[in-house]
């Protein structure tokens, strides 16, 4: 912890980080101050008035916690009768014009209004006059649907488009209780981060067309993971659920805060890549284009590999570091030439200097770190006299290798693949493997942040794990402890690191190296 100050909350002394406001500082020590409009990424606006707290001997005696920095000796009253009454009163006023139809609201279960009602209000409505009528189901563009009646006018969404994306599509028009969030006609949401307003919305006013009414929030399991949509490696929650009689399916990705990587947000494109985890999966092993029992297909692949004189291994820049290490080890033992050629993952000019990167792969830095050649020439050369191509889940090869396609077509190929693709269809042997939402591992993002992620989804019929397949194909570096050692060898920064205490935010390898130099 950085510098600290001691202050009093309800008479109890607490030590908190200085330089923060009361909401953020006290949250760290487990004290919640209710709020709608404040968000750490958007700053304090002070419009909701839910975070009003008392300051003993203070001038003024009542302050919004979001706008009040912590200071030494500050005496904060949170449970004083007058503060409880204010919270109760503000909640009542928040709710008078709010539809009371939680059972049909998509936000139910993850709604600040609902939660705070239970904690701070908990009274029957005294509203005996007609509510203000506003518009519902407004299409704001980018898959965002807005309900003005559910909105609490916290302006988080407006501030997001003005302060963060600087596209400013949203505004609050009118004044008084006619105030409402809207877009200027013809200038709808048009930015690549628009769906973040759905997460930012503390209530059910902003919904995602992609997610709304697909699943109740309370059924969803929230598993932390890392987006593999590009080389940023944004931290996400994978919200998934196995419905009765169905499979474990992903319903949405949501951003997970990581100050080192993505802050509070993710891009829309990455957010919607969850569809690819559910769909288009290679479900069964195939031999010569026909379904085959898995063990027979593996045996077939093993023999082909054993008999190959000049095998070429192509591996995906999305593979985890563990997978890359194991594939490299197998390549060495089989004298296979190894290529990480993956130009088709790069979409030049698509990056925006913020979260979206040109490189649509999650671990190219891993390839580089392990010294795996990614050049087209290397791959083309290797193919020249190759008699077998083993593709380790590289899904984007054809567009960038059109002139190589003919060459590949003439080769015997083994496709180890999580998804159906051109190479799986033509492969002599196609073996399904799990995808990143189903396994755990480490990846390095474009800024050299080494991150670890854990399995999230457990399919009814799980595809084999890549490491498991590799072991069955004769790879000897597939055990966790061995891989751990290999990893520490490959990454000097990891030497001596207790992997069970690996930092949740990840490890900045560049910084670590510098540390070593200066040390």
């Amino acid at each position: 912890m950085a510098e600290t100050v001691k202050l009093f909350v309800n008479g109890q002394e607490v030590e908190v980080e200085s330089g923060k406001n009361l909401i953020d500082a006290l949250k760290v020590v487990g004290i919640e101050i209710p709020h709608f409009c404040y968000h750490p990424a958007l700053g304090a606006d002070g419009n909701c008035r839910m975070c009003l707290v008392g300051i003993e001997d203070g001038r003024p005696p009542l302050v919004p916690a979001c706008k009040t920095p912590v200071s030494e000796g500050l005496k904060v009253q949170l449970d004083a009768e007058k503060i409880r009454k204010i919270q109760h009163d503000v909640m009542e006023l928040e709710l008078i014009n709010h539809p009371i139809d939680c059972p049909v609201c998509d936000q139910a279960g993850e709604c600040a209004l609902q939660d705070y009602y239970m904690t701070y209000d908990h009274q029957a409505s005294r509203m005996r006059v007609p509510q203000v009528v506003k518009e519902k189901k407004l299409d704001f563009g980018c898959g965002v649907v807005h309900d003005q009646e559910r909105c609490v006018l916290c302006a988080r969404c407006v501030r997001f488009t003005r302060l963060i994306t600087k596209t400013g599509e949203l505004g609050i028009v009118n004044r008084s209780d006619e105030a409402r969030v809207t877009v200027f006609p013809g200038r709808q949401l048009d930015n690549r981060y628009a769906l973040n307003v759905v997460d930012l919305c503390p209530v059910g006013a902003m919904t995602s067309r992609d997610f709304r009414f697909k699943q109740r929030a309370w059924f969803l399991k929230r598993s932390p993971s890392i987006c593999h949509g590009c080389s940023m490696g944004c931290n996400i929650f994978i919200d998934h659920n196995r419905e009765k009689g169905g499979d474990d399916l992903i319903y949405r990705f949501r951003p997970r805060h990581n100050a080192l990587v993505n802050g509070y947000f993710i891009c829309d494109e990455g957010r919607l890549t969850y569809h690819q985890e559910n769909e288009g999966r290679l479900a069964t092993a195939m031999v010569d284009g026909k379904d085959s029992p898995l063990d027979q297909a593996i045996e077939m692949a093993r023999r082909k590999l054993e008999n190959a004189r000049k095998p070429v291994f192509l591996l995906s820049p999305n593979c985890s570091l563990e997978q890359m290490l194991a594939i490299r080890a197998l390549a060495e033992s089989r004298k296979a030439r190894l290529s990480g050629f993956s130009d088709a993952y790069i979409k030049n000019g698509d990056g925006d200097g913020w979260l979206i990167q040109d490189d649509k792969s999650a671990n190219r830095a891993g390839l580089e770190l392990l010294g795996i050649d990614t050049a087209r020439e290397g791959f083309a050369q290797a193919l020249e006299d190759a008699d077998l191509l083993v593709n380790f889940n590289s899904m984007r090869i054809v567009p960038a290798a059109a002139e190589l396609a003919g060459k590949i077509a003439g080769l015997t190929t083994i496709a180890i693949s999580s998804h159906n693709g051109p190479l799986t269809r033509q492969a002599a042997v196609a073996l399904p493997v799990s995808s990143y939402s189903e396994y755990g591992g480490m990846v390095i993002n474009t800024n050299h942040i080494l991150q670890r992620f854990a399995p999230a989804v457990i399919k009814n019929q799980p595809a084999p794990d890549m490491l498991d397949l590799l072991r069955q194909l004769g790879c000897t570096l597939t055990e966790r402890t061995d891989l751990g050692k290999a990893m520490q060898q490959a990454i000097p920064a990891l030497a001596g690191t207790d992997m069970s205490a690996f930092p949740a935010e990840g490890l900045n390898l560049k910084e670590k190296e510098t540390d070593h130099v200066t040390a």
Partner: protein
Amino acid sequence: MEVKVLSAKFDIADAHLLEVAKQHGAYATLEKLFAMPPADVIDEVKNSGLRGRGGAGFPAGLKWSFLPKGLDKPVYLAVNSDESEPATFKDRYILTRDPHLLIEGIIICCWAIGCHDCYIYIRGEYTTQRKALQKAIDEAYDAGYLGEKVAGQDFRLDVTVHRGAGAYVCGEETALLESVEGRKGQPRSKPPFPAVAGLYGCPTIINNVQTIASLPFIIANGADAYKAYGTEKSPGTHLFGISGHVERPGMYELPLGLPLLEVIDKVAGGVWKARKLKAVIPGGSSTPVLTPEEAATTTLDYESMAAHKTMFGSGGIVVLDETVDMVRLVKNLIDFYHHESCGQCTPCREGLGWMLKIVKQLLNGEGTTADIDLLRELCDNIEMKTVCVLSAACTMPVRSYLDKFRPEFEAYAADRAKTEAA
């Protein structure tokens, strides 16, 4: 009872023209002003005890002294000519009848606070007033009282009139700044106060038109001459607006401290149509109402108003005769504040609309005594929970009507009871 300090040139024909105004002393203080160090000007104003005439009554000189020293940023002056509080209609007389008095005051203030860019925020409804003001400003530019060298001094001063467009809340000083910056007039949280971070993030002083227009007299004649008017704690004169049920409504300049009822009787001709007095709103619609008994002991100064649990406000006195239906009056008031709520803070945005609907329900004969209690409780629940005092400007007076005239509200509730019984 009337005096002629601010209004000295109001009755002179064509005094809005520079030529005429100069014949009657306009800009005469400038020679003295530029010989004074700015700190001395601030001291003189502090000594005069001049209080902000917009409604809050904050000492003007003290406000100026809050400006941080030695900052590498411009200092702005924003003149508040938003004058939108119901029953307030004083500043516009300055704008149309003696605009050069205001400009002269602006020069004094800007010299004192080191400001070179002044914005006059005028409410959009003041169409003819804006034209008159702009004409005077143009004259002042042409005559060298504004521009690169004010009165030949090495002192630049530019004055720009910024038009509001129908929003009472812009009279709140930080909402005014937001409006000049091109945004909705939504008040800012304080701190930081405008003197530290105001217009465009720079130190800013916001003063009401009448406050600024009081400066030439103070500089010309000294603080003591100004203090010769009024009371010890409320020195000076004020442009009082008397409206409602009186024989001679209008704007009158009076020293502070005069007895309220005497002013109503002698200056404004008393309650009209020989009717009885029911109540007095002492300082604009947001100030708690006074019963005749309370009014009888009230004098027109800050301290007497405070002692009567009301406020001096903007000096807009409204006289209510015996025929006034207080429930309807409260509806009229809430209607106004609800209409003008900027929509920012939850309690004001949602609460005032609720209060309005409750009163309407009562007037429709559909209310109960529980609704009256609820209305009273909402006043407490909303008040002072918001960024600015607009909500309090509604709840404070409404509470006073509920407390002082409750039987009238109950009569409406009884209507419903009667209907139900039938």
